């Protein structure tokens, strides 16, 4: 058991958790009945992906992606040749962070629009339960197919 944990779970623990979180989110999006719950599920789904990306960019033993004294380091690099001034292993990979800043912002924008649509639905139907809304649409359908 311990051996299994160390060889297959431990090096990928973050990835396993991201899959679990993502599946929780996906399940909520499909199976939950309340629209707000669906949206919370959608947000969890998106954060799971962000967790995945950030985990990709981690380097053990590295610091945050801010190079103190960047100018001096660059000047040093100029003198001693291009390599050697900044050791890339000491800084976390910045690219996934940048991508995920974008993804977070996209996520909150989508959430905002979705909540606006949900409020509009509440104005129209008086409820946020999916089955009740579908029921109302069905009865409206029977009353007048054009509506």
């Amino acid at each position, binding site marked *: 058991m311990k051996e299994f944990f160390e060889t297959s779970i*431990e090096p990928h*623990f*973050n990835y396993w*958790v991201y899959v*679990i*979180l993502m599946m*929780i*989110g996906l399940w*909520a999006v499909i199976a*939950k*009945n*309340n629209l*707000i*719950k669906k*949206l*919370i*599920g959608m*947000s*969890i789904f998106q*954060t799971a992906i*962000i*967790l995945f990306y*950030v*985990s990709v*960019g*981690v380097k*053990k*033993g*590295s*610091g*945050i*992606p*801010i190079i103190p004294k960047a100018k001096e380091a660059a000047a040093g690099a100029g003198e001693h040749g291009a390599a050697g001034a900044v050791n890339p292993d000491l800084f*976390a990979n910045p690219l*996934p*962070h940048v991508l*995920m*800043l974008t993804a*977070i*912002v996209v*996520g*909150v924008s989508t*959430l*905002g629009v979705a*909540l606006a649509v*949900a*409020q509009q639905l*509440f104005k129209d139907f008086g*409820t*946020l*339960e999916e089955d009740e809304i579908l029921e109302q649409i069905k009865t409206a359908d029977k009353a007048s197919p054009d509506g």
Partner: protein
Amino acid sequence: MIPIFDYIILIFMVIAAIISLKVKDLLSASMVFGIYSFLICLLWAEMGAVDVAFTEAAVGAGVSAVFLIATVYNTKRRSSD
């Protein structure tokens, strides 16, 4: 980069996610979702993604939770599931 810390946060995140989806009171669900966001923000700070953590703290835990609460306030607080 402390593995145990990492594991604890990850497990708490899963718990927070499940609770926020299980609670029938939508206001509580939004609050728990805020907690979830704070946990994930902590995790990112711990992984060295400070900018992402900063954004998540402001956006995920702050503004998204407020948006959710604003909507819950204007609609129904109880949910059937």
